[in-house]
Every structure is written in C-alpha cells, then in structure tokens.
C-alpha cells in the first residue's frame, strides 16, 4: 500500500488503539472464561451469548462511576499515572511487526525501544501508588519497583544472549532469520545454541513478573494490600490500570513470539502470515492465563530470591556460555 505518510500514520495510530482496546477488553473476558474453565464452572454467561457482551457492560459500569480524587493526593500525578501506564503499551506496538508488511515503523533498534517504553510502566504504577497517599499503595509501589528492577536484569541478559545470536535488534530481521520451518525458530535452534529453551523459560518468567501477573502480582496483592497501588482509584481510573495489564501482556507475548517463536513464520515453511503471528501470540496469552490460575502468589522475598539467586546467575551463565560457544564453534 502506498498511502501518503500522514494517512499511514493516522491509520496506524487508530489501528493500534483499536487493537489495544479490543484486546484489553476481550482478554478480560478470556481471562474470566479461562479461570472458570480451570475451576470447572461456566464463567460469565448472562450478558450476551456466552457472556460476550460482558466487557462492554463492565466498561459502561466503570465509566458511569465517579472519578474520585481523594483529598490529600497529588492530584496531577494521581490523574497522570493511569495514562502513563497505558501509553507505553501502545507505544511498544508501534515497533512490533505483525507480518512482513504490517508494521507501523520498521526501525533498527526496535528491541531497545520496546524495553525502554515498557520500563516506563514501572514508573507509572509507582507514581500512582505514591500519589495516592495511602500506606498500602506506597508499600505496593515500593514492591513493584524492587520486583521490576530485579526482573528486568535477567530479561535484558537473555535478550542480549539472543541478540548476540541474531546480530540485529531489528525485529523484522530477527523474524526473517527464523524463516523456513519450526526448527529454524530461535527456540529450537539447538544447533546454534543448545541453551535456547532455558533462555526462553527465563524470558517467559521475567515477562510474567514485568507485567505484574500472578504468581508475581505484587502490584495488586488483594489479600494483603487491599488493591495495592490501585487502592485509591475508582471507576475508569482503575479500569485503565486493568486494561493496561492486559495490553502489557499482549506486548510481552508478541515480543516472545517475535524473538523465540518465529513471529509470522509458519512452522511448516509455507503460508506464513499474520494468522500465524496471532495464533502464536494468543497461545502464549492463554499460557499466561493458565499460569495465573495454577499457581498461588509467591511471597515477596521468595520472588526476589528467585530473581537474584536463580534467574540472574542462570541468565549470566547462558550469556557467558553462548559467548564462548560463538567464539569457539
């Protein structure tokens, strides 16, 4: 398609917003249905066929509620935080290619940009917690910062391991290198680096932690901290946080798909395209939901132990081993 640049830009902005919005709304439905299936109950059934209109009903409810700004909060930061949480997820999608032709921007440092923006997310949740003037929110904000910093390190280390292999940070080129068949995907390229599955598992765990998903959902530890950093938020303020969580999951899963599962490349070598990308991405999203409804929340210190005592040493070891292997072999 050869559209003039401003139109192309506008289309991608609208497309990204629609994609993020639809995903955030309907992943809530998927989550509830999935949770219900794992617990062997039907889940939402009343609103629309199979409860399909439930997200719309939820959104209407949240939007009709008053946006309470409690006295004593830092009102600018308090209002800004939900926007700052939602924005990075949308920004990240600007660089994520859905297929050979469908990408808002094909830039060479796409990977760096995704990580740069996704770390704003941490700051935004922390700001929300800090601005709330609520002790639970502040405890939660402190936890989020230490958790996300702890998990960003192993995530970066495994991504560096991967980039050492691919030699590029351009997401489209990374996917192009994985063309062919299933054994060309980075996850299964054991001939080049037998440690790839370990790298993927670490990346996946870090992604769960970065998106504050169970079993690492310290941001919203309902049983201990009321609703964590979101305690003081009402109505759509809370709704935006909720949507941002799912938007971040989508970004995380898309990234995992691009880096490890061959993006839009088909596993049999022919008919590559967007459907494969979406299929792989939603399979990963399903696994995220599956993990949430399998494991209980970890304790905070064991969460940090997992990162500092296991993930960081293991990812450092894979980095060093990969470097040695690349030098010798």
């Amino acid at each position, binding site marked *: 398609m050869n559209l003039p640049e401003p139109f192309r830009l506008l289309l991608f902005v609208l497309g990204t917003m629609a994609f993020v919005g639809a995903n955030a709304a309907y992943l809530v439905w998927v989550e509830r249905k999935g949770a219900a299936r794992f617990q062997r109950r*039907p889940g939402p059934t009343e609103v629309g066929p199979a409860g399909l209109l439930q997200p719309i009903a939820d959104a209407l409810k949240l939007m009709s509620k008053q946006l309470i700004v409690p006295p004593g909060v830092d009102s600018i930061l308090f209002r800004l935080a939900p926007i700052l949480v939602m924005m990075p997820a949308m920004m990240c999608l600007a660089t994520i290619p859905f297929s050979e032709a469908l990408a808002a921007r094909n830039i060479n440092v796409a990977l760096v940009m995704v990580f740069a923006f996704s770390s704003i997310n941490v700051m935004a949740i922390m700001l929300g917690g800090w601005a709330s003037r609520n002790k639970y929110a502040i405890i939660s904000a402190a936890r989020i910062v230490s958790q996300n910093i702890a998990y960003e390190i192993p995530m970066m280390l495994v991504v560096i391991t991967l980039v050492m292999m691919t030699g590029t940070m351009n997401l489209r080129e990374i996917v192009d290198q994985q063309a062919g068949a299933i054994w060309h995907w980075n996850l299964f390229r054991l001939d080049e680096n037998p440690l790839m599955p370990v790298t993927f598992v670490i990346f996946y765990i870090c992604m769960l932690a970065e998106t504050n998903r169970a079993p690492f959902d310290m941001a919203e530890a309902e049983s201990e901290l009321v609703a964590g950093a979101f305690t003081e938020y009402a109505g759509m303020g809370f709704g935006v946080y909720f949507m941002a969580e799912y938007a971040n999951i989508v970004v995380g899963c898309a990234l995992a798909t691009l880096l490890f599962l061959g993006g839009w490349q088909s596993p049999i070598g022919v008919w590559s395209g967007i459907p494969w990308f979406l299929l792989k991405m939603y399979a990963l999203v399903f696994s995220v939901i599956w993990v949430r409804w*399998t494991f209980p929340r970890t304790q905070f210190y064991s969460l940090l132990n997992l990162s500092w005592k296991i993930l960081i040493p293991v990812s450092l070891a894979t980095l060093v081993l990969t470097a040695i292997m690349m030098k010798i072999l």
Partner: protein
Amino acid sequence: MNGPLINVWRGFRSLVSGMRITLQQFFKPNVTVQYPHESIKMPERFRGHIIFVRDPDSGKSLCIACKSCAKACPSECIVVDGVKREGEKKKSVTEFKLDFTKCSLCGSCVEVCPADALRFSKEYNLASPTKGEYVEIDLVRRLEADKP
C-alpha cells in the same frame, strides 16, 4: 553446585506437573449448577413442608380428619377440621392449615398419620417478602390447585 541446580530442576518439574493438572481440569465438564436456570433434583429423603398424599382412585386426599397429626405436633402448628359426608364411611378433610413459620420438620405428623395421608414435599424454593404466605399453608387448597 549440584544441590541448588537439582533443586531448581525439581521445582521446575513440579510447576510443570501443576500446569498439567490444571489443564486436565480445563477440559472436564462443569461441576456447578446455574441455579435459577437449572437446579438439583432433591434426594428421596429430603424434608420440605408436609403436603397431602393423593388417593390414586378418587384423586382426593386420603386424610380422615382424625387430628392425630395436630396432637402429635410438638410445635402445635397444624390445624385440621373435617366433616362426615353423606354416604361416606370416613370423615373427609375440609381444612388443613400448617404454620410453617413454627414447623421444625420433625416428621411426627407423617409418622403418626393412620391413613398415610401426609408426606414431605420436595419444595425448597421458599422465599417471600412477607411471612403471611407461610403462616398458613393451606394443604387442602394446594391439593386442589395441583390437579393431576
């Protein structure tokens, strides 16, 4: 170095087996009952409030208005009255009222009935904003309203 690595591996395997178990549950049928749309069939010995047993021949109540149940009732929540109709051997019941707000479902009335005219119903959907409906449950009218 061997110990911690084995530990990590064991932990990872236990996580995977946990995931396997939840996935197995995922594909099994629901165990819940969506109450207003469907409900469980009450078991044989469930005790709802008492109702009349219908005489299979005449379609009327078997009650002979002997008032044994009213006497047996520890909470005195049964009021019975009957008349002897022309050409009938037994008395027949004209009034049988149960105060369900007092009844403790002890079953003495069912046990004592010489004509086996009483049984427990299977009704459990009992809710009302006023107690009037349950202060006087009219068993005679219920039997008539519930024509076979």
